[in-house]
């Protein structure tokens, strides 16, 4: 069995439920094509280095799975047809995985870590959002003061 990793970018405006639905659909596809699903790593929203379909942000998800290679076409076809997926890239991560069970347990561990990281990230994002909003409110007022000063100098 080979290990593949497929990274894809989901539209940022897609809701969490819809994204999760996509992941469960991928799980089903993997199972049907005889692949071993290892984990999905949701890396959250990231800024794109360049715009794709006018989107500046994207939600990055990496799926890891073991397969003889037949699952790759199935997964890629599904992603190509899915309009909320902006881009995908499949890379062979390991040409030969012999101990499948060991890899599976390691994947479970990784998934737990990723979930933890995602939780932390969500918390941090929420905090940043709050801070930005607070900043905007106080900053907006400070700016107004500056403007008034400028105008005073001019007159």
């Amino acid at each position: 069995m080979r290990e593949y990793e497929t990274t894809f970018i989901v539209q940022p405006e897609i809701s969490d439920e819809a994204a999760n639905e996509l992941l469960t659909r991928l799980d089903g596809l993997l199972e049907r094509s005889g692949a071993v699903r290892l984990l999905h790593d949701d890396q959250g929203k990231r800024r794109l280095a360049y715009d794709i379909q006018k989107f500046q942000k994207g939600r990055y998800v990496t799926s890891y799975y073991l397969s003889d290679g037949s699952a790759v076409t199935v997964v890629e076809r599904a992603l190509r047809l899915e309009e909320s997926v902006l881009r995908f890239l499949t890379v062979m991560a390991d040409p030969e995985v012999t101990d499948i069970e060991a890899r599976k347990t390691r994947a479970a561990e990784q998934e737990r870590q990723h979930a933890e990281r995602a939780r932390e990230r969500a918390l941090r994002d929420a905090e940043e959002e709050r801070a930005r909003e607070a900043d905007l409110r106080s900053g907006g007022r400070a700016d107004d003061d500056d403007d008034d000063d400028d105008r005073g100098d001019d007159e």
Partner: protein
Amino acid sequence: MSESGFGGGFGGDREDRGGRFGGRGGPGGRPGDRDRDRERGPMSVKARLRAKARKKARKAQKKKGSAFRKKVCRFCADSAVGIDYKDPKGLRYFLTETGKLIPQRISGNCAKHQRQIATAIKRGRQLALMPYASHHGM
């Protein structure tokens, strides 16, 4: 009169060179380079330039001491550092501000790791993690 004198001067020069070094090698080459040419067969212009640059660097190194330190591949030095196309922060170091790959001559990577870096950056570009070109700075 003056013309013939000129020509004679050139001729004499050429003969002189031919006698000393066996008459091969391009203009501007040093005597030492030409001796090596004869042993290994003809050197391309690029190879000769590279050899010259190496020699110059060696000379400068002698003069300045540590100013021209030998670069060590950072991935060979520390095997814990991996190369991952999903890690734009780590790869950005190997791009110029305009988004071009930095040659190994400057980054100091060994051939193996430079190759891995190049592939990783190209993969990252497809996934919009790395820029193809930077229009407004990075």
